[in-house]
Every structure is written in C-alpha cells, then in structure tokens.
C-alpha cells in the first residue's frame, strides 16, 4: 500500500486478509496540501493495538500540523472495558521545523501498559519519514485535565478519573482530548477528537469500527427528504436497502436519530466501500438529510449522570444506498491477529501477518519514550509518492565522450557569473566565445548533481578559455523522474468502472492530458517523465502496476524546461577586424615611403590607396555589429501549467431500483443446480429431457418458465 497524497487510506483488517478500502475525500474546506495517514495494527504479548496517525502537512512551508495519533489497546471481542482511546501530547499544536530536522512529535501514553513514540523526518521538503517505536512502560491513566484548558480542549492530562472535564461542546483550536464512554455496560463507544479530526469508535455485532470524522463549523439546513422513508413509532427510517436494514433513523422536527447503521451486504460489500456500520444507542442529531445532498450530522455522546458529552460534527453525503463520508478512516478488526507494516524508506508499502518479513520497523532503535535522539539515525533519502528518486539511465554514450561537446550543470548565480565573464573579459583578438556555446537550457527544477551523474567540479572552459567558474560536467544526457503514484479508485465497483461507461484521463505536468485505458481501475498508476537534459524535451509516461509489474499504458511528449537565448558581442572578433584593417593601412604607409624613396611613383600611389582603404576598413570594422545570439525563445507556456498530476474520471452512475434483484435480477452467470439459487432467477442451458413422467408439452413449458424467469422457493420440509 503506497501512501498517496490527497487521499485517505483505509485499511481493513479482516481475518487473514488486509485490504485497502481507499476512501476518497474532498478537501474543499481544507487548506493543507497533503494528508498522510499512517495506520498500524500490532499486538504485543498482551495487547492488540490499532494505531492511526494522521498527519496534515503543508509541504511548501514545511509545516506539520495536527498529528493525530490514536491508540486502542486490549482489543477483545467481548468488551472494551477500560480500554479506551487515549491521546496525550507533550507538544500539541503546530510544528515548524527546517529541512532535515528530526522532530519528536508526540509522546503517547496508551492505555494501561502501552506507549508509542513517533518520529517524523522532514527531508528537504521531499517527504516525511514516520517511525514508530513501541514500548510498554508503566502506564499512567490519563484524562483531559479540566484545570488546564483552552476553549474546550484540555492542554494537559490528569490521572484522576473523577476529576474530568464534564462537558465538551465544541472542539477547540488546538490541543486534543479523549473520552471514554461506557453507556450501557455492554459495549463501549469511544470518541476522540482534536481540532481537525474527531474519531468515533463503535462496536457492532462483536466487530469494532473506528471511524474518523471531520469536524467543521459548517452547518447545513434544509428539508429532510422522507420520500423513501417510513414512520415506525415516531422514528423515521430511511431505507437504504430492501433487506430491512436502515441507514438513518430520524425523529421529526429538527431531526435526531437513534441509530445509524447498515448491515447490508450489498451496501458494504458491493455497492460501494464507503459504508460503515454504526451502533449508537444514545446518539445523535442529524440536522438535515436529503438524497444526494451534502449534509452534516452531529453526534452527541453523553449521559446525564455523570454529565459527559462530546459533540462531533461531520459532513456526509447521502445517497439512497450509501453514506459517503467526505472524510473518514475506517479500521475493521474482526479477530485478534497481528499485522506488521512493511515499511520501506519511511512509507508503509504493505502489511503482513508474517513477523519474519523484513521491514524498516525492525531496524528502528532510536531510543525509548522521550529518549528519541535529536538526530535521525541516517540521512533520509528523497522518498515518497510524489518525490520519487530522480533516477539516471546512462544507456547511451555522451557527446563529451566523443569529444564534441560538454554539458555543465550550473546554477542561476553561475550563469550570471558566466554573463559577466562574457561581457567584461578582454578576449584575445579573433576569439569568439559564443561560437563555442551550443545550448543553454533552463529547468524549473533543482537538478541535483546526483540526478545528472555530475562528476568532479572544475572550471568551465569555453573554446579553450578558462572562465574561472566552477561547475560539473553531467554524466548523462537523459534521465527520468518519478512524479508520483495514485491508487485509482473503482467508483462503482462493477462493470460501470470500465469503458464505455467510465473514461480515465491523466494530466502530466508539462505534457498535458492523456487518456489511459480502463485497466487502471482499481490499480495504482505511476507517472514518470523521461527527459533529455540537452534540450529539455520530455516524454511523460503513465504506468499501471499489476501484480507487481509496471506496464506502460500511455505516453505524451512535452517540454520540461526551455531553451534560453545567449547573446553578446564578440569583442575579440571586433578587435581583430580593426587591428587587421589598421595593419593594412600601416602597410600602405610603408609602401608610400618606400616608393617615394625609390622614385617608384606607382608603388607610392598604391601605398597611398592602401592607407585610405585600411583606415576605411578599420572604421567599418569599428562600427560593425559583432552581436551573437545562440538558442531561441518561446516554448515556455507549458511551464505555467499545473505542476501536479491529476486524474480525471468520467463515470456513469446507475440508479438501481431497490427491487431490481426481484424484478430483473442481477447478472449472475453461474452454473449449477436450480436448487443452488433462490428467489427470482433466469436460467439458460436448460435441459428438461430428464424430467421423468412429464409430457413433451410440459417439459417445454418448464423450460420456457426457467428461461424467462422463475421464483425459486426452497423445497418444503417433508
């Protein structure tokens, strides 16, 4: 599983499998650039743990905000008991740190006997490395301290359970809070929140669901659409399925609900992956709801004795058969099982239940608890889905190998120095430095020497003249650059995700839009740019990863940089021309003198002519233009386009009637016995010749009924 930007990661732990649900989300009201979500499920000798770390990162400003870790320990299938989510931050709030600095972000005190340390590297703004280190110290049971709050949020923690803040109405700006709530003694709901992401946790049918909600002050009011609802004893039930399971239970007026859940196999397994089960018996207010409208609901946890409340608000979008949360992260935990994240270069790439599988997690030995060293164990390399290593591919020989040309990697300041050298140096007569410059290409990137295989620095020589400017000759003239990866979602989860019902397009920076085949649905795509360092031409490639292999599926040409014009006056040529003319005039003067002395009038006249011609030529040479221009302008427009990759999915949504299966039937195409199926069925390949005792007319009639639609009830008990 790759961590992708701008998309939430959802990991489902279920039995022997770990799968990624891949919940999409919208960042309309969100100002941060990147969302990283790191989830970890682990088990020590005594404890099962699920950890969710959500990090909002503003890459440009190198700002990390609201690191939200959550630990849930001691999972059992019977009771959560005291095992609530506990979050404690020694250093809550924002963290601004320079490049390369290693920050100890949070110290967590888990419940009872667990702790977690997080380390996050900021690697030259190129990525973040998240490291976890587990410990099991003596645990101090903590709750938000009512004596130290900002707004409604605790800023410190108190180990006296009775001394808790009793009312939480809204989330504050900073800080965090946690809360335990055991409302009926049979199961425990957990709510944890900070300024951005509240969490709620539910137990339902011995399954535990952790859901991360998104707080907002946005409120939506409107009319509740009850066109598809029914009134059952004062509660309005909004049906999402025809199997008797309801998603929202309303009560009238400014509606509230007693339960939000869906247990529909269709909703959870096939219709869309965004459904979560809820079992909340003391909850909630739903401010508004209508088909396909954006709504908000508020969950209020609490009892009157003692008075404890936690209010969480979030957005959701309703559909007849789904609840689409704009923000969310779900962890399902079906059974006690240990999953180990496979961490490579700071990112979780997969999960495994084989503890012997290698992972960077095994190599972390940076200390315990607060003893995380100030410096990272080793300099992190540029990693991440959007900052793949620049990789060189020196397949071909260099021009410089043949002695024709050399290409230097220079900076803007070195370029300015070169300009100064060109315009102020007193070059030898006849020397034209511009004739030795063949190209100057500007890249809108910081091309590192490593990426270009640049060798040892030395002075730039142009036509044999030493410029005195130190730079390196690049060791390759072509390379490629990974821009990022993206897990393309299947929006429908059925045939509608494929052509001709859905089209997929990818925008490659500096290249433009390219249509990709529907093979990308449900797979990860990789964007890579191959480019020529000598002229800035590029080819953007789109790969799809299938079964571990990358398959090239689309390409588009473009320009990553631009040719830059080099202009100036060839002073050496100019001076050489003038000198040559003056020499000619001098030779004429000598001839005049020689002719007069020898009495050779013809020679004297000829010499006089040479004086006049030479002086005239020198005058012409002095007034002539020796301006040189190399390269060309233009071709920059693409550089002003977006510098990120985009995926556009144009899909088809089917509004499937709830009774579709009963009246038309879902496409099945499965062989078997008639008794293998139930309900409305349409069959093919029906051979009734073996029905003993039936007439031919009866056999044909049976065949026709089976082929046009039969409703199969189970055989009655004998």
């Amino acid at each position: 599983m790759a961590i992708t930007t701008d998309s939430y990661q959802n990991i489902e732990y279920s039995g022997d499998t770990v799968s990624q649900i891949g919940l999409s989300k919208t960042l309309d009201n969100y100002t941060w650039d990147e969302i990283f979500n790191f989830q970890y499920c682990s088990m020590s000798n005594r404890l099962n743990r699920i950890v969710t770390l959500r990090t909002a990162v503003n890459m440009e400003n190198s700002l990390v905000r609201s690191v939200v870790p959550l630990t849930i320990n001691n999972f059992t299938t019977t009771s959560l008991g005291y095992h609530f989510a506990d979050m404690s931050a020694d250093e809550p709030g924002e963290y601004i740190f320079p490049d390369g600095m290693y920050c100890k972000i949070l110290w967590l005190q888990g419940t009872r006997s667990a702790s977690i340390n997080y380390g996050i590297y900021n690697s030259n703004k190129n990525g973040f490395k998240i490291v976890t280190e587990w410990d099991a110290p003596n645990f101090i049971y903590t709750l938000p301290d009512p004596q130290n709050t900002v707004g409604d949020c605790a800023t410190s923690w108190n180990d006296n359970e009775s001394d808790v803040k009793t009312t939480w109405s809204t989330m504050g700006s900073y800080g965090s809070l946690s809360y335990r709530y055991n409302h009926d003694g049979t199961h425990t709901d957990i709510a944890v929140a900070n300024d951005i992401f509240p969490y709620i946790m539910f137990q339902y049918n011995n399954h535990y669901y952790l859901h991360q909600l998104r707080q907002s002050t946005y409120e939506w009011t409107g009319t509740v659409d009850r066109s598809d609802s029914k009134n059952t004893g004062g509660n309005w039930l909004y049906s999402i399925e025809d199997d008797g399971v309801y998603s929202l239970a309303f009560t009238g007026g400014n509606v509230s609900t007693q339960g939000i859940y869906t247990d529909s196999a269709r909703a959870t397994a096939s219709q869309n992956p965004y459904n979560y089960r809820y079992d909340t018996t003391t909850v909630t207010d739903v401010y508004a709801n209508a088909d396909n409208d954006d709504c908000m609901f508020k969950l209020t946890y609490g009892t009157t004795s003692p008075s404890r409340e936690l209010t969480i608000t979030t957005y959701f979008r309703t559909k007849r058969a789904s609840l689409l949360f704009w923000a969310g992260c779900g962890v399902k935990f079906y059974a006690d099982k240990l999953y180990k994240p496979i961490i490579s270069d700071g990112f979780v790439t997969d999960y495994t239940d084989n503890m012997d599988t290698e992972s960077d997690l095994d190599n972390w030995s940076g200390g315990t608890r607060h003893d995380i060293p100030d410096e990272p164990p080793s300099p992190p390399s540029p990693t991440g889905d959007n900052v793949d290593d620049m990789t060189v591919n020196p397949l071909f020989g260099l021009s410089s190998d043949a002695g024709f040309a050399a290409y230097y990697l220079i900076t803007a300041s070195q370029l300015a120095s070169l300009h100064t050298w060109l315009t102020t140096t007193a070059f030898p007569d006849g020397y034209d430095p511009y004739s030795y410059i063949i190209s100057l290409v500007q890249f809108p990137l910081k091309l590192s020497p490593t990426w270009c295989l640049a060798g040892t620095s030395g002075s730039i020589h142009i036509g044999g003249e030493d410029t005195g400017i130190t730079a390196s000759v690049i060791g390759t003239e072509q390379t490629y650059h990974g821009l990022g990866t993206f897990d393309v979602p299947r929006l429908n989860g059925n045939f509608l995700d494929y052509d001709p019902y859905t089209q997929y397009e990818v925008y490659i920076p500096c290249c433009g839009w390219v249509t990709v085949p529907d093979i990308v649905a449900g797979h990860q795509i990789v964007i890579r740019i191959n480019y020529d360092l000598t002229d800035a031409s590029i080819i953007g490639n789109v790969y799809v990863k299938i079964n571990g292999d990358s398959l090239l599926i689309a390409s588009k040409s473009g320009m990553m940089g631009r040719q830059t014009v080099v202009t100036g006056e060839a002073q050496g040529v100019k001076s050489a021309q003038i000198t040559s003319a003056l020499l000619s005039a001098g030779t004429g003067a000598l001839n005049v003198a020689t002719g007069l002395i020898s009495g050779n009038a013809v020679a004297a006249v000829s010499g006089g002519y040479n004086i006049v011609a030479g002086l005239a030529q020198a005058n012409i040479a002095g007034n002539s233009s020796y301006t040189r221009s190399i390269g060309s302008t233009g071709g920059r427009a693409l550089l002003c386009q977006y510098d990120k990759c985009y995926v556009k999915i144009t899909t088809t949504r089917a509004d499937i009637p709830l009774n579709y299966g009963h009246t038309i039937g879902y496409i099945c195409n499965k062989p078997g016995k008639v008794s293998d199926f139930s309900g409305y069925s349409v069959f093919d390949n029906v051979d009734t010749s073996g029905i003993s005792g039936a007439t031919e007319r009866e056999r044909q009639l049976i065949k026709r009924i089976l082929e046009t639609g039969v409703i199969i009830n189970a055989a009655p008990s004998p």
Partner: protein
Amino acid sequence: MTVTLYNVKSASNVLHKSYDTVQTGITATARGAVDVDRPEILLNYSSMNFNYFYISEFGRFYNVSSRALVPGGHILLSGESDPLESFASSVYNLNNVLCVRNEDVSKWNKEVPDPNMITGAKREYHGYKFGSMQNVHSNSDATYILGVI
C-alpha cells in the same frame, strides 16, 4: 378420480408454491376422455372457494381455467396443468443449468455489463490531485545545462 382443492397464493412462475388446502378426497367423474394436460371433470363439490387442484390419478397440479355449477350440485371443472409444481422436485434438482440472473445481490457478477442497469444512469466527474514536479518558484532556484564545445 380423487381431487384435492387448494387456494394458491403464489404466482404461476413460482417453484414450490404456497397454497392452502380447501378440501381433500373429493370424488370426480370423467366426462368422456380426460386430457391429462387440460382435464375436464365433473366434481362432486358445490363451492367455488378454490383456484387450484390436484388429481391423484394423474399426479399433477392444475390451475383452474373454468368452472361451472351444473344441476345436481356438481361443478364442471376445467384445468390447465402446472408442470412446474407437478414436477417441482425434478425441476429443483435440475443440474447443469446456467443462472443468468438472480435476485441475490451477493451472486451479482459485477464485471459483466448489464444493459438493464444503465437505463437512467447519469454521468459523474471526479478529479484527484497527486504527485508533484517539485517545481522551483524562484528564478534564482532554477538550474541550467550549458552545452559548450
């Protein structure tokens, strides 16, 4: 002939129909030759409270197609055989059939296009942003490749 009368509730295309028994062991008399597919019999019964019957001698269920009260307190009854119910056990165990469509959503083969499902479908557009070129935003940060000979 011995006839059992029923009130069937299920539709004609239901295998293993649901019905209530109205009367069992009713004697019927044939009027000439009796077609096993479409029998016409004189029933020693005078009520019309049934819509389905079973003839033991034929081993078949019948939908009532017509019935008329005749002098003597009898009913002239015509029926159409229901082979689906008459041979329900054989049909239920019929093998090597291909179920093209089914009501159970869990059996839905979602990868197969369903032309019925796209009726009334609507288009939606989704956009996602990812990755970065790591562009520099200041000219002084740009890098250059200088080619010389």
